[in-house]
Each structure stands twice: as structure tokens, then as C-alpha cells.
């Protein structure tokens, strides 16, 4: 009935992570810290000039929810399409690494354990090829 939605139950191996991180409230707590870090990060903030902030916050929430092993609408194709215009502008591995770094720093600020942070980083890592259009 909802083919575009990947429910967390369907994703192997990440079932407990979202709950362990604290679910939707954790996403809400992390999104501002994360997005503020990204906007202040000179390595990548050039990609965000002129974008609509409230729309971006909603997108970042969806991204964090996915990276936390939670409910998400992202498919590999969405990731590709959503970043294609940035790849054209030079989005590369270094930028991807910077985002993952900012994400890890956000979680450290929220006192998330290293083992959970590496699980989140691994999920984020799984999108690299799609994000960079390979």
C-alpha cells in the first residue's frame, strides 16, 4: 500500500538502534545541532547558500531518522536525484566525509556512545554511492 516507505522493521540489523537512540525526540534534539554545524562548516556550507531553511530542516530530519535506523522515505534513487545538482557543482568524497563528521560530532555532543555513533555512521556511509552519483 505504501511502496515508497521503508519501514524500520524491514531493514535488517538496525532494528534496535532507533529506539536505543531515543526515537523521534532524539531526531528532534539532534536536527538543530547537526544543521547548525553543517551551516557553520566552511568545507560544505557553500552547498546550502540560498536554500529554504524550513524545508531543509524537514529534509535533515528525514535524513537523521534514516541514519538513526528509523522510519524513512529515502530510496537510493531519491538520494541520487536529490544530490545530482550538487554533484554537478563538485560534491565529492571530502564533502561527504565532512557531513558524516558533523553528524558524529552532533551525536557526541548529545552524549551518544561511540558504538552507537559508529552504527549511525555505517548507515550514513551506505548512502555514499547514491549521494555522489556513482
Amino acid at each position, binding site marked *: 500500500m*505504501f511502496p*515508497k*516507505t521503508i*519501514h524500520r522493521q524491514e531493514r535488517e540489523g538496525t532494528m534496535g538502534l532507533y529506539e536505543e537512540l531515543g526515537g*523521534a*525526540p532524539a*531526531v*528532534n534534539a539532534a*536536527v*538543530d545541532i547537526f*544543521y*547548525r554545524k553543517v*551551516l*557553520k562548516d566552511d568545507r560544505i556550507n557553500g552547498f546550502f547558500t540560498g536554500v*529554504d*531553511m*524550513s*524545508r531543509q*530542516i*524537514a529534509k535533515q*530530519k*528525514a535524513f537523521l*531518522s534514516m541514519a538513526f535506523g*528509523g*522510519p*524513512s*522515505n529515502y530510496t537510493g534513487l531519491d538520494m541520487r536525484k536529490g544530490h545530482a545538482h550538487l554533484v554537478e557543482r563538485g560534491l565529492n568524497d571530502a564533502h561527504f566525509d565532512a557531513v558524516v563528521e558533523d553528524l558524529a560530532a552532533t551525536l557526541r555532543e548529545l552524549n551518544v556512545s561511540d558504538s552507537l555513533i559508529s552504527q549511525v555512521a555505517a548507515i550514513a556511509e551506505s548512502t555514499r554511492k547514491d549521494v555522489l552519483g556513482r
Partner: protein
Amino acid sequence: MTRLRFRDQDYKTAGRSVLDCLGANGQDIPHSCRSGVCQGCLMRAVSGVVPARAQQGLRDTLVSQGFFLACQCHPVQPLEVSLEGAGAQHYSVRVLGRKILVPGIVSLEITRPLNYEYRAGQVLRLFRDESTWRNYSLASVPGIEEALHVHVRHVSGGAVSGWVHERLVVGEEITISGAQGECCHVSDAPGRKLLLLGTGTGVAPLWAIARDALRNGHQGDIHLYHGSRDEAGQYLRDELEAMQSRSRNFRYHPSVAPAGGAHPGVAAVALGEIGNLAHWRVYLCGSPAMVETARMECFLAGAASGDIFADAFLPYKASGADSSPDGPGTLSPTPGRAQQAGASLESR
């Protein structure tokens, strides 16, 4: 069995969520994650009781208007729900007064219909005729003014503002919509500091928000910055200065561009004086350029994204036969998931 009413039909929820119950009955309710995260299934309670869980994570301004997430809502008492905000409703009202505040801006006073609910800072539609309307922010405050007040700036060639300024007469009957929008005051946190940033007639809803806060015993500091190109743009100055001298915690900061120079931006001026905005609540009303810049600057200065409320006064864009422009005073729904759904009644 709990009764659920939607579009004049009754359904039995039988333990299901509002989303599942309506979906099973062939009603197409927009949704996505079904987990309370994406807020895509935002609906509004018209009457009845919404379980607290269905409003978890929603902004206070949405909660106060009865919005909830259909996927998280398992009603235990009869509930009537809608996909539309209060703005879908129309009211016939009478023009009670028309006062020129400064050249180019009139304050329109109209009757407040019985049962007309609104919050300080919300927006209504003013109809010239069935198909011609613009959004205007309410300058009045429920409980202070008996009537409704809106400030209308005359835009050259404006279909509605021109009509208000040149032809509308006291005593005339006109149509307005219900009030909507979430750039409004909610008196849930009287200790919070409030930053109100406005340009042009954006000061009207901010003035209302400040008065409503003070009326409700707001304790935190309230700073209102009004940016304008010249001194003539600083309307409401007398009222705001009087307010400042009356209240311990209200500060008015008129901000005029230097002679012959550009205004540095009302947010830059405010942040230069205030610095860190952590735990502040921020309201932005006025030109889209100011609103978008200020939103970013306030967020980077530490304001939580959920604590920034904005109304960008977009210039009217013709979608059909009516091609006359209307500038400030016209307002578009602020983007963003929750807001989009909350304001989806704005058919622009």
C-alpha cells in the same frame, strides 16, 4: 466504538488510528512515514478531544489550533476532524472604520463575527470579490480590541489594496476568512525572551503579539525591532514608544537605514545588540528577503528552529486573469512540512 466525523460522514475507529480508519474508508489523507516523524498527515480537530500522543512533537502554535498527527491519533472520545485550517471558513462582516495611519497605510476596522476565534499575529483573507483576495495580518488582539483590525499598505495597481484605499467605505459589507497561520502568540511560556523582527507593515502583527504577551502577564523580555528605509516607514512609533514607557520588559528598537545607505538588515542590528539567542522565541514578519536572512541568522545565533515563527509577505503573483500586483500585506504560507500542511488552505 468511537465515532470519527470527517467531511460530514461518520466512521467507527474500532481502535484504529484516524489515518488508518479514514484510509480504510476510501478517504485519501496525505501521509508518509506513519510513525509520527514526518508530520505529513497533519489534520485539525474541529471538535472533540485529541489524545496527547497525537500532538507530540508539534509546535505549540499548531497544538493550540487543534492540529494533530492522524497516524498517531487513536481517539477514545468522539472526534470531528478536518484537513483544512480555520481559514477555509468565510464570514460576512461590516467595515466599522478606515483610518490613515501614515500616507499609504490604512488601518481597517471590521466587525468581529460571533465565534470568530483568532490569536494575536494570525492572518485573514480579505475578499474584494469571490475570486480576488489577499492575506493580511491581524493588528488587533482578542480581549483588547472588540473589532478586527488589519493594516493595508497601498500597492501601486494592487487589486485589493487599491480597492481598500480608494473605494471601500465605512458601513460596507465585505467577506473575510477565518484566521489562520502559526506566526502567533501562545502564552505557554511567560518567562521566555521574545525577539520580534519586522519590516514595513510586518510591525502590525508583531505589535499585536507583544500586546497579547503583555496582557497575559508575560515576564520575559520582549524586544521589537522595526526596520525601514526612512523615518516615514516607522509608523506605530507613538504607540510602541508609549508601550515601552508603560512596561518593564518591552523594548522598542526603531531601525532606519543610514541616509543614502542600505539598511544592514533588521536581524543584523538586533543580533549585534543581543548576541546569543539560545532559548529565545523569534517572530519574523515582513519582506521575504528579510524573513529568510533573519531566519538563518537567528538560527545560527542559537535560536531553535522550532522557536522561529515567520510570515513572509510575498508579492502577489497572478495565476490567472487578475494580474494586478499587491505587495507587502500579501502573505504566503511559510514553507516546511508542518507549516505547509497547516496552511495548505492557502491556495496560492
